């Protein structure tokens, strides 16, 4: 195993652990810090791949991804966190143990589901691909089991980080223009969610999504 492959495995490991830690920790401030760590790991994956495949363009992408996912997006989330206790998940749909167990099952599922893509190109990068898919699935889990607006944003960010990781590991990223557009859209979507959660808090008194019960048939 080359040194590059070891660095890649390390970065992917941190990337996955950060996602599991988001499932474990429930307050928004901790989630924002963990997402920043995950953003750094994602940028590291791009740097290692750039060195490995002699693809200098990837360094620029890594810098952009690092700034967006490790600084800007977690920053937006952190600024939304108030000292008030209401941002903590107090009545989760699933307790911590069950969520962690579910995450473990999702990781196994990701390894099975990603098999065709790993088979397509049997490099060390492709072998790490299931990690990206696992983070996507964990992001979906967080999205559907959390009740607070800010936790849902965290789930959405996990989902997007996972997809970006898959894009890097599978084919060294999508075309630069597409990557730029995707990042810009992601940034705007998170800003929109942030503004909406602020307005929800202003008019509902809290950003607890369980209070969103006015619209039904």
């Amino acid at each position, binding site marked *: 195993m080359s040194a590059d492959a070891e660095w890649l495995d390390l970065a992917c490991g941190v990337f996955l652990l950060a996602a599991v830690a988001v499932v474990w920790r429930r307050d928004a401030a901790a989630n924002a810090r963990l997402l920043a760590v995950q953003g750094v790991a994602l940028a590291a994956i791009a740097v290692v791949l750039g060195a490995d495949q002699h693809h200098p363009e990837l360094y620029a992408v890594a810098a952009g991804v690092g700034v967006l996912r490790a600084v800007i997006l977690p920053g937006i989330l952190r600024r939304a966190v108030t000292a008030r206790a209401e941002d903590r998940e107090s009545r989760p749909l699933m307790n911590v143990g069950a969520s962690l167990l579910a995450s473990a099952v999702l990781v196994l599922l990701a390894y099975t589901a990603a098999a*065709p893509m790993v088979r397509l190109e049997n490099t060390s990068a492709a072998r790490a691909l299931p990690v990206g898919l696992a983070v996507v699935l964990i992001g979906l889990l967080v999205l559907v089991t959390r009740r607070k607006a800010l936790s849902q944003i965290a789930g959405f960010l996990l989902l*997007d980080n996972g997809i970006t990781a898959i894009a890097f590991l599978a084919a060294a990223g999508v075309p630069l223009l597409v990557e730029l557009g995707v990042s810009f859209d992601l940034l*705007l979507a998170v800003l929109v969610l942030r503004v909406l*959660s602020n307005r929800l808090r202003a008019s509902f008194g809290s950003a607890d999504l369980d209070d969103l019960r006015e619209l039904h048939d």
Partner: protein
Amino acid sequence: MNTALFIAPLVAPILAAALYLGLGWRRATAHAATATAAVILADAVTLAVRVLRHGPIDAASGWLRADALTAFMLIGIGTIGLIAASAGPAYLASHGAETERSRRRYGALICLFLAAMSAGVLAGNLGLAWIAIEATTIVTAFLVGHTGSRTALEAAWKYTVVCSTGIALALLGLVMLYDAARHANLNETNALNYTALTAHAQALDPAVLRMAVAFLLLGFGAKAGLVPLHSWLPDAHSQAPAPVSALMSGVLLPVAISQILRITAIANPALGTGYSRTLLSVMGLGTLLIAALALIRQRDYKRMLAYSSMEHMGLIAIGAAIGTPLALAAILLHIAGHGLAKAVAFTSAGHILATEHTTSIDRVANLAHRRPVLGGIFAAALLALLGFPPFSLFASELALARAGFDAHLGLVIAAALLLLLVAFAAMANHGARMLLGGGESAPASGPTLSIPTRFPLITALVVLAALGITAYPISTLLTTAAGVGR
């Protein structure tokens, strides 16, 4: 000249949006959005003529592309855009609580919405189309929450979260498709290009392609209001301002459907028709089932129209599942008919809300007597949506059923027709209660529909009936567009 045809529908609305941001919503700028929609429509017609004469046009080294399907969708954006934008001033005038700032924002966002949809259909590259379609979510989030009420904010939140998640899943599919394409020796710029992908579909790894197609259909299906990620639709369509609902239902859903058509055009040659047929049939029937059940117990007429959108999108998904040229031409005619009828229905529902101050079906009674013009327009739009002749939805539903039986999908079509019947009975019942049901019968006081507001609605209904009698003016475009780029 060709490049100008690509630039105009993108730049005109962006300029108009800048105008609103700079000058605000005033007498002089009130109709800028309508003018923008007219520019898009004129551009689309020119594009359609050129494409039919000379074949598909590429621009910006393949990033932009116009084929018959593009021209057809762009004509839809222009037409529905005209109806919706011309209803904007009346909508803003009827809501006294609007501030200068919210009017300005409304004008700018409507124009950006038109620009994003135009970009979505003009893209020649799946990545660019994805960006444009995600942009429509971002732009419309604030339009859905425009009124700022609790219910509107709730709808906007659900809309943004569900659609962004759905479209993120489509991105995952896109990444997988890109991976498969790179391994089929397509270069970086061609690997997401529709023409290149369709041409090299056979070389794509089938196992990876299967996963990619499932995620892409799920993701773009979310934007088209298809099961399982449909939950945002009834809330968003009922809470958004009426002109926005008209645009979202009449064109945004079909723009997502057009992406689904392009994806099946890539998937079918490589995987056989069976795979996408199964997925789309399940999604279509599921959507129809949920819409039909929700229509039965509906008490809110805007939600009724929203579920009717789901009903028609479910039917269109089943048409996409059939996938034969006849079925695709039928669903395109259905998209045109549904778009026109739903634009009129939502716009007139907005006028009903403005005069009756309620969205409850039970509290609106005897509309046909009390407000004959408004009631008549609303009734005609409902009849069109129910599939009555002479309106074109009758013809397209008939053609769709025939195409289904030809393709040996009798069981799916039979189930769909049964669900349509349930939806029909429910909507006919609700509509009759609103229009004819008891209550006071004296003509209502208050403002009647002014001539400039009536005109686009009545024109749309006349066009809808004309299309039902003969699709001649657009029949060549329909059959060519049904080839999806081929």
